[in-house]
């Protein structure tokens, strides 16, 4: 009999059983804080009656983050919805220190990482969105509850079907100018939009081991685009160092057995991957930057749950230092969290961005959250480190969105056309 993969082990521990099998229906519990978006109606949470006790199984294990609208959001979102969520939090008893409202706001998934709300070996649930998978970089089973949030919030468990697991091994070293975002887009292009249907991807291999945490979050942020439920990187010293500087909670990481059961096992050598660009409208048709180089752009965006962390913005600064944004282009750089913004200030990145002529809104999901922040207009051509390129994602449905790494976005913003970042790095 095959051994157990890491997901089977995490889920078995969560339900208090010696083991679970793929396809089992189980009700999982979580030891982690569950993240709730603070600026919408919380994916159906609005239907809960806060006065019906007990309406929340454990308010201590709720975290609220204002992210999708941030300070640049629609008035109703940043005003009414925030207030509604604060009132709900007050009524049910969510601790104040678990609330990241305007002033400490940011992308929910970025703050959840910074706060180590997701933990190695644990089930981490979020009511925010499908990019909850970014937290799989911390070595837990990280999934979005979406509209199913009410069951968990009221009862403290949620039903799931134990998912099949795909192992994707990445080996080799990337060329200069090629980053985790490029590697992810390349792999997605190879495996396609249904490459890992309803599966959980386990990323491993020497390439993954050499990545810092910010790059690991990037690799894990977009798993849904190959139809995966989520993804995970089994914890190592990089993970444990990151988590232990952020929480004193006891950690018992879990690892798959050497002979674990996998639905499929794939290997990719990253050595020959070029910087990638994903043209609209399909999400998975990545190509080398050379295929789209020279295309004129009008807007550019760096940030989001995929690439809004400090190392991403540092990369942008390396390209932008001493340069100016092309006069026909607006580059919006939105830090993924207030803490990221603060570090950019401390390390001199904000000065570089301002000198280059970058538009710098406060931390949030930026332009990627449905165009709440500097939305695209009809006819705009945008290059973005955001997550999606379907029509209307960042504003007008009559605008084109190209996706790329922060380095490629920054280089393109300088030249005014899609540009290989290696020319400016």
């Amino acid at each position, binding site marked *: 009999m095959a051994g157990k993969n890491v997901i089977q082990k995490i889920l078995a521990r969560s*339900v208090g059983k010696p083991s679970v099998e793929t396809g*089992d*229906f*189980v*009700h999982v519990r979580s030891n982690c804080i569950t993240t709730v978006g603070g600026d*919408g*109606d919380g*994916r*159906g949470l609005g*239907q809960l009656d806060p006065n019906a006790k007990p309406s929340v199984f454990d308010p201590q294990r709720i975290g609220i983050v204002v992210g999708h609208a941030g300070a640049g959001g*629609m008035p*109703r*979102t940043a005003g009414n*919805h925030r207030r509604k969520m604060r009132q709900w939090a007050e009524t049910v008893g969510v601790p104040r220190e678990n609330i990241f409202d305007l002033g400490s706001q940011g992308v929910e998934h970025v703050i959840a990482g910074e706060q180590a709300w997701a933990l190695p070996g644990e089930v981490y649930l979020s009511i925010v*969105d*499908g990019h909850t998978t970014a937290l799989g970089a911390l070595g837990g089973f990280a*999934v*979005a509850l*979406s*509209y*199913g949030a*009410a*069951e968990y919030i*009221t*009862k403290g*468990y949620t*039903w799931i*079907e134990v*998912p099949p697991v795909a192992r994707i091994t990445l080996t080799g070293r990337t060329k200069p100018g090629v980053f985790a975002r490029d590697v992810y887009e390349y792999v997605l292009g190879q495996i396609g*939009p*249904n490459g890992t*249907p*309803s599966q959980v991807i386990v990323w491993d291999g020497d390439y993954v081991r050499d990545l810092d945490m910010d790059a690991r979050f990037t690799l894990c942020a977009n798993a*849904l*685009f190959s*139809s*995966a*439920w989520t993804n995970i990187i089994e914890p190592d010293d990089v993970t444990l160092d990151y988590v232990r500087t952020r929480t004193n909670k006891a950690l018992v990481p879990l690892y798959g057995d050497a002979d674990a059961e996998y639905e499929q096992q794939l290997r990719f050598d990253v050595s020959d991957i070029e910087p990638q660009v994903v043209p609209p*409208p*399909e*999400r998975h048709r990545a190509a080398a930057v050379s295929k789209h180089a020279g295309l004129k752009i009008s807007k550019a965006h760096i940030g989001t749950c995929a690439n809004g962390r400090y190392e991403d913005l540092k990369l942008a600064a390396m390209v932008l230092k001493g340069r100016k944004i092309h006069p026909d282009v607006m580059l919006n750089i939105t830090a993924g969290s207030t803490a990221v913004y603060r570090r950019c200030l401390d390390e001199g990145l904000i000065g570089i961005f301002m000198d280059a002529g970058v538009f710098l809104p406060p931390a949030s999901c930026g332009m990627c959250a*449905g*165009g709440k922040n500097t939305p695209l207009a009809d006819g705009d051509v945008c290059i973005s480190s955001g997550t*999606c390129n*379907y*029509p*209307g*994602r960042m*504003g*007008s*449905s009559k605008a084109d969105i190209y996706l790329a790494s922060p380095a490629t976005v920054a280089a393109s913003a300088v030249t005014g056309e899609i540009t290989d970042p290696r020319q400016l790095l």
Partner: protein
Amino acid sequence: MGQVWMPDIDKTMTGGAWRFEGTLDVDWELCPYQASKAFGKESARKLTYIERMEALKMLALQPLDPDFHKKVQRGDFLIGDDRTGYGHDHEHACIALRGAGIGTVLCEGTNVNFRRNSIHHGLPVVVVKGIMSAAKTGDTLEVNLVEGWVKNLTSSKTLTFKPWPEFVLDIIRKGGLYPWLREETPATNQSAVA
């Protein structure tokens, strides 16, 4: 749930097939995200669930067939490829399909977020391997969700699928997660826990 129509999943359901090839992204083909926002959280007036369902119906499958909402009949089946419900875990598409009267989504493949969101909105989604070659638009289908089979009455082909467990069928019967939670008793809850 008020007066919202719900499929009677304890009987064999009969309806017409609507077959769409390729990616059915929740945010584009199934229900364009940007347009849907007019009927969502930022609409001028907070819509009720039923009003939102009625409004989003107009956008169901709109990029592929602008008149879909006029042609689809209550209880019809949506037939999709292996990328049905692709992309984000946005659930507006599930509401749009229910509003359009789709009785069940039968697809070659989907993802967990779309499946769970649909069930939680009372919309059955099942993976039926071979359905794309076994049904075309205009065929009449019979579907039995409890027993796990679909029969094409036009071609006489029958396919089977793994039925959902009883507690999931019960969520669908109740019209979704919220009505299910309101009605759920401790006894049914215990039986649902594995």
